[in-house]
Structures are given as structure tokens and as C-alpha cells.
């Protein structure tokens, strides 16, 4: 038990510290159940003080990963390091981590106060210190005055805050959170999301946060790892993962609640122009042409099938009366199919002309004008966007899979050497762009 005397929690944003050993490091961790592999050869590093999310669909192994760090399960292979020390085989009650469970798991026979004190009693604190600490952490989660209540007398959101106070009161090296907001309704979830960010800033503890909610991970994390079938698909800042997905899976899985997932366009390479960082590839899609920057080190043949992703809010629509996209932009002729007015924005569903089998594209336009003033009509006939918004996806067998694992695909960059969020995105896949906003 490392006694970290954080008597005065820093109120400013603690910059995660990348100098020491990572708070959590997983090296080649594998966990197999009788019938399936939950986590395979997974490596990951979480820096001290980071808010790090593990995001994946159900069955991607994210909860198993968390339970192995907590000590409820042991890996079949690999190492789990906490502060540089391998803890595989160390029982849960001797690990310097604490967990916030999805089901809260508050002790029903104890008061709120005694729930928070439970972990402190195991530390053998002196009476006065114990009392002060319980008070501090109930304050932190804004539940001062609720100490005498029983868990069942609290709302779901309050119960979850008690669970957070109980786990944090021991001042663990790492706080593990297993979908802590999943059981709450949308409004409370949004509220607690803000709370969690504040709490993490105040205490500065490393948070390892497991969720299947893309937006939650984007909003909360310094960095996040996208998991798929027990492997890390991509690690990066929310902006990296959103703007520069390395694979079709990430492009489609990472979605914001307003605009949804990326559009993925399939086509064949027409030309490659330029060289080095300025290399551009032109891809024929239906009757149009998509321009994308060619990541260094990636070679493409003429006629080779490739997939390009573009976010719905990055593309623009042009009607027959417009001039169309400027030269040097992607230009795809489309046919309007559906329009959905969503208040702040309008969602346009358009079909690619000349590629009847393709999934329709979604394009978002901000409703900066009043409804009915959407300009001279005829509907959109062209979609266009700048080349820097195109993301050339890695080669992948198959087409249009949602989550099924095409077995044995190599994912080279599970380990991420740079745990500092906010710095340049690590070159995952093949991109090396620093500017993503």
C-alpha cells in the first residue's frame, strides 16, 4: 500500500506525468476461457495521472482486461505491471488499485459512511484520520450529509458516487472503472460524466475506464484504446481516433451521438501524384474521384481496391446550381435519397452515382439558416471535401463487416510508446499527421 499523502488535491489540471514508469502496463497479456479467447497478446501502457479509456463493443475483452488488473482474474500469459512491478499472482486485496463496479456493489448492510470507511479500516488508519478521510471523500463526490443513509435510500447516481468515493478513499495508484455509468439514465449519465472529469482533475489519480459508449470515451479520456476481439485496434487521443482511424472497424465504431460513424467509400486506385509527405492518391468511387493523402511508407498499385473514410460533418453538399467543390477536392456525384431535420443540423442521405451496391453516404450540414431557407433547390448532386479529411484505411479482407473478426489479422501497434495525451498522435498504422483539428 503506497501511502501517497495528497493532502491538498491540486485543483488545476494535473499534467499526466510520463517521466516515471507507466502507472499500468500490460505486456502480451492473454486470457482464454474454456470456449474462447477473451484477450489475446495485448499490450498497453497507461501513464501516471492519465484518464485512459478502454473502448470496445461487448465481447471485445475490455472487462476481462480490467478484472485482470484488479486481480479478480489471472492472465494465462503475459505480465501486468503496476508502477513497474509485476502483480500477476498477487491477490486483489494486496493490489494498489481500486474498482468502481457497474452494479455499484455497495455493501447493503452498511451506511454510506461505513461503505466509504470500509477500505480505510483495512488500512488500519487512526480514528481521527479515518473520520477526516471519509469526510473528505464524501465532500469530493458532493454527498456530505448523506453518511448515515443506507445505499438503498439513495438514487442510482448517488449510489455510484458513493462507490467512487469508497474506491478513491484508499488513494490507489490506479482507479479502475467498469462501465460505471451504464446503469444510469441519459441525463444522469451526462451529469456524472462532468463529475468524473472534475474528480479526476482534483485527485489526479490514474483512471482506467472501461466503456462501450464511444461518446463517453471521447468526452472523458486523455487517451483511449479501441479494443476488438481481445486485441488493441488503435491507441490515441480522442481526436486521433476520431479523425485518423487506422482501420475500417475504428472508422465505423467510433461515432459521435450526433453524426454517427464514418462514411466508408470503396474504390480503386486511379493515380498517385507527388512524393513523400505531399503524395496524393486519387481513388475512383462510382462516377467520382476521391482524393486522399498517401501515408509515407504505404505503396499502392494502380487499380488496387482501397477504402477511404470521411466523417459526415467534414463533407459538403453541392446542388446543380452551385459551382461544385474547388479543384483539388474530392468530388463524388450523388443522388439524394433522404433528408432528416435534427434541429441544429440536417442529415442528408445520398447515394453514390455509379455504385449501386454502396452504402449511402451521410452528410451533415449545420442549420445556420432557418428551415425553409435552404437556398435554391434541386437537392444535392455532388459531395466534396478536402483531401486532408480523407482517411485511407488499411487493407482489410472482406467488405462491410461490423465486428466479426477476420481471424489472425496482424495488428502491429498494440503497444504505444507515448503515454502523454495532447502531444502529437503516435504514428499508428502509417499516418504521421500531427494536426488533426
Amino acid at each position: 500500500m503506497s501511502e501517497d499523502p495528497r493532502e491538498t488535491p491540486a485543483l488545476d489540471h494535473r499534467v499526466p506525468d510520463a517521466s516515471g514508469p507507466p502507472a499500468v502496463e500490460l505486456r502480451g497479456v492473454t486470457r482464454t476461457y474454456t470456449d474462447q479467447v477473451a484477450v489475446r497478446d495485448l499490450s498497453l501502457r497507461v501513464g501516471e495521472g492519465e484518464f485512459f479509456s478502454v473502448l470496445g463493443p461487448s465481447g471485445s475483452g475490455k472487462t476481462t482486461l480490467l478484472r485482470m488488473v484488479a486481480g479478480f482474474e489471472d492472465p494465462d500469459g503475459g505480465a501486468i505491471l503496476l508502477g513497474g512491478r509485476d502483480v500477476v499472482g498477487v491477490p486483489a486485496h494486496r493490489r494498489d488499485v481500486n474498482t468502481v463496479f457497474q452494479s455499484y456493489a455497495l455493501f447493503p448492510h452498511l451506511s454510506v459512511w461505513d461503505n466509504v470507511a470500509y477500505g480505510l479500516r483495512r488500512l488500519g488508519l487512526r480514528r481521527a484520520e479515518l473520520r477526516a478521510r471519509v469526510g473528505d471523500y464524501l465532500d469530493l463526490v458532493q454527498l456530505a450529509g448523506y453518511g448515515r443513509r443506507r445505499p438503498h435510500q439513495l438514487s442510482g447516481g448517488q449510489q455510484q458516487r458513493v462507490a467512487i468515493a469508497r474506491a478513491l478513499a484508499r488513494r490507489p495508484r490506479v482507479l479502475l472503472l467498469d462501465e460505471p455509468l451504464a446503469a444510469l439514465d441519459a441525463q444522469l449519465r451526462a451529469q456524472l460524466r462532468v463529475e468524473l472529469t472534475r474528480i479526476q482533475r482534483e485527485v489526479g489519480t490514474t483512471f482506467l475506464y472501461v466503456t462501450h459508449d464511444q461518446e463517453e470515451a471521447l468526452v472523458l479520456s486523455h487517451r483511449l484504446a479501441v479494443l476488438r476481439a481481445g486485441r488493441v485496434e488503435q491507441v490515441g487521443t480522442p481526436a486521433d481516433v476520431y479523425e485518423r482511424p487506422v482501420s475500417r472497424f475504428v472508422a465505423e465504431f467510433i461515432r459521435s451521438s450526433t453524426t454517427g460513424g464514418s462514411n466508408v467509400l470503396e474504390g480503386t486506385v486511379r493515380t498517385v501524384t507527388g512524393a513523400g509527405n505531399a503524395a496524393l492518391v486519387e481513388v475512383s468511387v462510382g462516377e467520382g474521384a476521391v482524393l486522399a493523402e498517401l501515408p509515407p511508407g504505404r505503396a499502392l498499385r494502380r487499380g488496387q481496391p482501397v477504402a477511404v473514410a470521411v466523417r459526415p460533418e467534414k463533407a459538403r453538399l453541392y446542388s446543380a446550381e452551385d459551382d461544385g467543390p474547388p479543384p483539388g477536392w474530392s468530388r463524388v456525384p450523388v443522388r439524394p435519397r433522404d433528408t432528416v431535420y435534427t434541429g441544429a443540423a440536417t442529415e442528408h442521405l445520398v447515394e453514390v452515382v455509379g455504385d449501386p451496391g454502396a452504402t449511402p453516404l451521410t452528410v451533415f450540414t449545420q442549420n445556420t439558416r432557418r428551415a425553409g431557407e435552404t437556398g435554391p433547390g434541386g437537392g444535392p448532386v455532388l459531395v466534396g471535401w478536402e483531401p486532408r479529411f480523407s482517411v485511407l484505411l488499411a487493407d482489410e479482407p472482406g467488405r462491410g463487416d461490423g465486428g466479426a473478426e477476420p481471424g489472425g489479422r496482424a495488428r502491429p501497434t498494440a503497444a504505444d510508446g507515448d503515454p502523454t495525451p495532447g502531444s502529437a498522435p503516435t504514428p499508428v498504422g502509417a499516418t504521421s499527421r500531427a494536426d488533426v483539428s
Partner: protein
Amino acid sequence: MTVEHAGRGRRAARGRRPWVLLAAVVGAYAFLYAPILWLALLSFNDSRSVSTFTGFSLRWYAELLTDGQVLDALWLTVRLAASTAVVAAVLGTLAAWALRRPFRGRGLWSTVLAMPLVVPEVVLGVSLLAFCVKLAGIPLGFGALLAAHVTFSLSFVVIVVRARLAGLDPRLEEAAADLGAGPLTRWRTVTLPVLWPAIGAGAAFAFVLSFDDVVTSSYLSGVGGTPLPVLVYGQASRRGVSPEIVALSTSMVVLSTVLLVLAVLVVARRARHLDR
């Protein structure tokens, strides 16, 4: 009980339920409780005859309190029931705990534990008698009685505690471990407190089962002491239904009912705290 009938009747009338339903309810309650009520009334009869009612009196109860044989039997029965409750609660809880996780032969073990529920009591009594006397050389009396009563009441404790364990969030124990509690501390500070209502209910069952038992006890009571139910049965079969026996039976009904209701109330109070 009469109040209960009236209440139900009024409610049924207000709800315009068919009279058949009302009749069925009244009939069922009458079938269950009329003989007991009749017995209770008789116990206050001044006359020695059990067929004619001559006046109210407590004399048969007063006689009970001066009857040394009855008092000895009561004391033995209470001691036996209390001991049975404690021993069965401890063993049953441990057994339920052991059966919580799957292991080889778990099905067999739980079947064996449930066997006393289906074995006829006469058979159980005979086999326990044979076992104590012929095989193990255990003297009849309190020890043998206790062993027998624990045998048939254990199943109830196991069933009740297992049901509670099945509803127990396994995350609770993980949370305790996560907060630094070793296995023993977890058991003491989390598992046991959450199981208390079930253990209490199981113990109450065991107490009442032991308190009411005639068949097994009549095989195993030694020369020294006779449990109350056996005494009642013996006297009734030898001398017929006397007013003393009627008063004694009424007391036993009241005593078991009060004990069971108390236990249920206490357990329900605790359980309400634990369950959301």
C-alpha cells in the same frame, strides 16, 4: 381468525367477487383452523368432559404449571429446539457456502443434503435408533435427539441459505477484496451480515421442526427425559384426550406460532434493510 374472515368477506363483497370464491376462502380457512380453534376453546372449559361446555376456567393451565413431568418435558424440548437451531444453522450455512461454487460431485452432495426431506420420518427414526444403539453405541437421550433433529432440519437451513447466496451479488465480495479485505475478513464483514436473514429464517425453521417433532423423538428419547410432543402423544394414546392434554396442546400451538411470527418479523426487518 374470525376477524380475518369478516375482513375478507367485506372486501370480497366490495370487490363484487362471485360468492363461490368467498365460500372457497371461508371453507379453506375453516378447514385449516376450525379444529385448532375448537381445541383452544375446549382448553378453557371448566368441565373435565371434552364434549360439554360448562364454563370458563384456567384450571387446566394451572394444573400444567404444577405438573413436574410436563415442566421437565418442556424444558428438555426448549433446550433441544434451541440447540438444534444453533447447530443446524452453523452446519447448514457452511454446507450452503461449500455448495456455492461448482465442483465435482456437487449434485450428489446437494441431493444427499435434501434426502431427509423425502425419507419418511418413521424410517429415519428406525434407522437412527439402529445406528445409535447397534452401531455407534451412542446412549439414547439428549445427544441422540440432537443429532436426529439436526439431521432432518439441516436441509431446510441449506435450502434457505442457498437461495439467499444465489441472489447475492458476487461483486460484493469482489468489492470487499478490492478494498483490501482478505478472505476471512470478507466473510466476517460482508458475506455473513448479508446472509443473516436467511440464516435466521433457517434457524427458526429448525427450532419449530424440532419443537414439534414426535416420530423421530419417540424412538430416541432415553429413560431420563421425554420431549413435550412425545409426552402429549403418549398420554393421549393411553388415556384419551384429557383437558390437561388439550391445554398443553393449545400452549404448544401458541408457543410455536409466537416464536415463528417473532422470527419472521425480525428476519423481515433485517432483510428489508438489505434489499432494495
